[in-house]
């Protein structure tokens, strides 16, 4: 995979689809996603429950509001962590970063390391509790940022070190 591939003639690509990126996110990421989704559902349910108790007549539009708010949140809480876990994958080769993310809309992003400008890690409070980190790789295009979510914090550190080493060897302004 790390072998340099010689350029192909424009009319004869050797492949028609992209394979999956090699690595999965940390299993703890699924737990975190589920925690977030369930918390959102519970908070929304509590707020709407309070409103339900305060509004005496239980008009029809309150039912509609409850349904519109709670059903999507329930769907997210039940399905999203699992689907995201299947979709979210990542890979770093000596030449490029390749990620897949999303759940309803999926995105596969490829950024060649020669065009990488910054490599950042992000660790929110909840991510710290679960020992996770996200790595963001930006290029000169605002549309080209690649984020690897749900990495084990140690893996994230290793990835950043690796990426920094590779990208610092490149020259030019990467545009």
């Amino acid at each position, binding site marked *: 995979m790390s072998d340099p591939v010689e350029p192909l003639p424009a009319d004869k690509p050797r492949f*028609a*689809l992209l394979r999956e990126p090699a690595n999965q996110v940390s299993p703890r990421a699924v737990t975190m996603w589920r925690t977030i989704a369930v918390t959102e559902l519970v908070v929304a349910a509590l707020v709407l429950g309070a409103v339900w108790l305060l509004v005496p007549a239980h008009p029809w539009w309150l039912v509609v509001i409850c349904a519109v708010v709670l059903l999507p949140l329930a769907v997210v809480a039940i399905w999203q962590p699992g689907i995201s876990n299947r979709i979210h994958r990542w890979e770093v080769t000596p030449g490029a970063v390749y990620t897949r993310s*999303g759940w309803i809309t999926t995105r596969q992003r490829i*950024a060649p390391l020669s065009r990488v400008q910054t490599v950042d890690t992000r660790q929110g409070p909840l991510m710290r509790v679960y020992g996770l980190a996200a790595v963001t790789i930006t290029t000169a295009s605002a549309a080209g940022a*690649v984020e690897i979510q749900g990495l084990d914090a140690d893996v994230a550190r290793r990835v950043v070190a690796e990426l920094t080493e590779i990208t610092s060897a490149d020259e030019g302004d990467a*545009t």
Partner: protein
Amino acid sequence: MSEWQRLDPKIMVIGPISAFRQFLLPSLIALIGVGTQQPRWLLYAAPLIILGSVGVGLLPWFTTRFRIAGGQLVVTTGLVSRKRLTAPLDRIRSVDLEASLLHRVLGLQKVEVGTGVDDSMIELNALSVAQAEQLRSVLLHRGAEAVRGGAAPVPDATTTEPDNGEAAPGHGAPSGHEAAATEQVLATFSPSWARFAPLSLGRLAIALGALGALWQFVGDVHISLARGDELWELVTGASLVLVLLVLLVGALVVWTVLSMVAFLVQWWNLRLVRDRENLHLTRGLFTTTSTTIEERRIRGVRLRETALLRLAGGGEAHALATGLEESTYAVLPPTPIGVTTSVAADILGDRAPLATELRPHGDAALRRCRTRNLLSLLPFAVVTLALVLVSDGPWWPPLAVAVALTPVGLLLARSEYAHLGHALAHRHLVAGSGITARTRTVLQTDGVIGWVFSQTWFQRRRGLATLTATTAAGSEKVTIRDIPLGDAVSFAGAATPGMLEPFGRAGPTE
């Protein structure tokens, strides 16, 4: 230019005038409020305003100095808080010259230097024409053959620049004569282009906005129409249709004249010139501007024909550049499509990307175009339905609206599908887009710095994807919508050889 230099002394004429203008309007507005009750205030305020603007206007000449030294352009400015702006010469990406009517009378030019690193421009207002030209020449051609041709050393690393000292403004710009030999004219202005001006509806929106603001102002000042009542009787007396017709025709005539005048004022005497790897664009009837971009910063071109322009055989061209404040850069006003295309081809250095046939995206994409355009018209039907429900109206209007809009939606879908497509031409990728407007975006494949394959749930069901080529130029991405996934992968693979290979696999068809 290693010596410290000042602005042209004649700026002391312009400074107070423009400061006065800046003071005048706000103070007038403030005074109208106070002054109508107590006119004395005007007497006190007038000398203050005049003295103040003279003082503020004179300041820049005394406080602003600049030089080129140590491979850097250094500008110091400010009276109380001194500001020192430095720009390494190899970071300077654009040098723009601008001259208002007043500047032109005095033979002055405002110089704006863009570095693209931060969004601020370094402004020198103003230098003499010769000084400005020379500064631009030095800033843009440093290090390159131009500097060698002018016998000036590469202005880096050292502070000694023998040539620049003697090439003072009085000598005129020596590079001006050389430039004539290397210039290649890409486009010159033709007044007949003004016929496209009324068709640019984007400007109509701006004009209507200005009109709205004016209307508000008139309302605020309480200008009472003394004969308003008579006018109203006259209007109500005539047939409503006739009145509307007259108003419509009147508005059309006014818009046509106004837009053409604005067009001529803005683009008069346009010249697009290539000079030693730089594109120069000069234009303007009263205020002349001259902008320059390095060709190596240009990654592509966007050709756009709005529906109205296309009917009249016109189109617009934008250059997609990296590291400029305004990264989609209008190189031409709306012009006949032949001119637009040939200039775009000159800028790209290749005609093929503009002429090549686009590969269509197939039936699945067409179906998605239909769904999308029909859904985009749905709000009209919903609003009608809501109105009927609220007002207890008859049952048929929502249905009528739906029936009437369906063909419109289908037509829009056909039009969008016809514009959709992609192609690869030598070193450029081409993306077609637009619903009513036909847009062709051409991007150097070298300028692609990443790919995004995005699929919504609906796209996955139809085997389509939205392919985004990310780039540092223009709007930083080129999007190809609803392309079959297999096509997307092989297209991206072919456009950037080597980038996708490690991640590719054979499709189910192979």
